[in-house]
């Protein structure tokens, strides 16, 4: 499969605090990758580097074969959509107005939305099942609904790669399942997905591939290989007994078989 995103020998630090030391990270088209690691391990930083929102001290970020730092911002925005953990909206924007903003990379300053733009907006709302909320004010929505709106903004960008930072955080178990189901569905439809997630159960349920961040390095592999107590315990600073019971590869094998059959 074609490589969509590649972080090559990336070194990054916030001032004196080193986050990554010559790490590599690769995402192939159509993959569904969970980024896991303890708090402060650099999950959000990894996503922000990938989206071109941060510049690495050393190394190269390649998106669809092109160096991100040489691409125009609008070009990056058409390939990657980043869904941050929090969205603070200071004014009473409606869902419709927010999702419309996903078309920003395609619009000129004084031009109206075209029929294609409207179609993309409507489609992204329908895929995230928020069409009925389109006239509601974003700040008055529940956490789960807001998360869907954030994903809809990203889909309106019509990207190839969706980066999500903690998409299930602060959601109840039902809404978590809905968001994971939505990500699974989007992935089945062809969207490549990378999500930073700290809930290992959610990772286990929905992500066949995992990137584990630990001590300025990244270990990447199948979930079945990495979601093992002996690997996770040192990464999360836990004794292996304290880790949640993790199901093994057979679950993912079944899920992958199901996805393949639906394709």
């Amino acid at each position, binding site marked *: 499969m074609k490589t969509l995103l590649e972080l090559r020998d990336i070194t990054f630090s916030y001032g004196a605090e080193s986050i990554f030391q010559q790490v590599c990270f690769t995402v192939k088209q159509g993959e569904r990758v969970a980024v896991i690691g303890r708090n402060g391990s650099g999950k959000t930083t990894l996503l*922000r580097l990938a989206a071109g929102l941060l510049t690495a001290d050393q190394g190269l970020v390649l998106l669809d074969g092109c160096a991100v730092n040489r691409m125009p911002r609008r070009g990056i925005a058409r390939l990657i959509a980043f869904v941050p953990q929090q969205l603070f909206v200071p004014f009473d924007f409606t869902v419709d107005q927010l999702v419309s903003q996903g078309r920003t990379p395609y619009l000129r300053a*004084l031009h109206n939305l075209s029929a294609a733009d409207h179609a993309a907006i409507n489609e992204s709302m*329908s895929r995230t099942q928020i069409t009925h909320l389109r006239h509601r004010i974003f700040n008055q929505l529940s956490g789960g609904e807001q998360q869907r709106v954030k994903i809809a903004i990203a889909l309106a960008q019509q990207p190839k790669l969706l980066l999500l930072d903690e998409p299930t955080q602060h959601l109840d178990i039902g809404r978590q399942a809905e968001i994971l189901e939505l990500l699974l569905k989007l992935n089945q439809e062809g969207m490549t997905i990378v999500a930073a997630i700290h809930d290992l159960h959610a990772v286990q349920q929905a992500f066949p591939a995992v990137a584990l961040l630990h001590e300025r390095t990244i270990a990447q592999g199948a979930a079945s290989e990495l979601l093992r107590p002996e690997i996770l315990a040192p990464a999360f600073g836990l004794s292996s007994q304290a880790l949640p019971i993790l199901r093994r590869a057979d679950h993912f094998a079944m899920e992958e078989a199901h996805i393949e059959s639906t394709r």
Partner: protein
Amino acid sequence: MTQPSQVEVQESRECEAAAEPRQPATRSLLAIVLVLCLLLVGEIFAATCIGAVTIKPGAVASVLVNRHAEGLEMEKIIVFQIRLPRVLAAALVGCGLSIAGVLFQGLFRNPMADPYVIGSSGGAALGATLGIVFLPHFSLLGFGATASLAFCFSLLTMIAVYWLARVGGRTPIVTLLLVGLALSAMLSYSTTFVVLLHPDSYVAVHLLTVWLHGAISNTQWSQVAVAGVMVGMGTVLSFPLARSLNALCLGDDYAQQLGIRVEFLRAAIILVGTLLTAAAVSLGGLIGFVGLIIPHIVRLFVGPDHIRLLPIAGLAGAIFLVLADTLARTLFSPTELPVGILTAFIGGPVFLFLLRRGKREYAL
């Protein structure tokens, strides 16, 4: 694997039929703008009739249509030399402050930002006063010292506020208000200090009244022309920023990931907002609350979309200030109130109401 583009094209076609018609939205914006324009023109005409000496609308119409109309000498003088430049100045100041308010609120992602609150007006007032006191004959590209120094000082103040109030990529309300408060106080006292250095005490007192309380009086056509060019340029330049401002409201990261060059956008907003503030202050001094309450009220009616907000707030601000200035010069006629007193009487309670209503959001 299904390619996203194919899915998009296919579903786009399906959704196209279901898409809500947008043309009416554009038409409704044009209709609102047209109605407000007519209202403003009518108001300017009415305000030209009203004053210490009331002129009949017919006489005003006659001199406006024919400047050489005979038998209306006094009306001609009152209309062309006193009232009309002043009323137009009020409209320009209202428009400039309102649009600057919208721009700064978008930039700071904060509904409490306005040129007066964040100190930008204070900077412009100090610059304008310095120009009047020390460089009365200075001229830069046809702009007098008042306008050009007002612009420079306003710009410097804005950069200082932005730099001082920003914490970790955000501009918290507390920091913004405190920085604005501190800088406004410093600038206001600096203006008083500069005015007191003026050898002519009468001029000094007049300057104090104008710059610190906001008043549009004795406006010359040349001032209206300069400020008109500045407000016109600022207004026209603000429109292409509208869509990017919407994205900026979601935060720097969001705006950047939507393809916006955030640093460039910020610089453009500061420049355009400063141009408008400087034009307004060079005509009317420190007129508070206009840039705060007009965007708020307009947002209640048309929503926060800057594509609609900018033109409507500009016109609403012009209408509001023409009304306020007319009241300021007629309520206690022949004594004139500084218009800043009226805008503070109206704007102060509205500001407090907004603070109370949003106290959870703006909690200290």
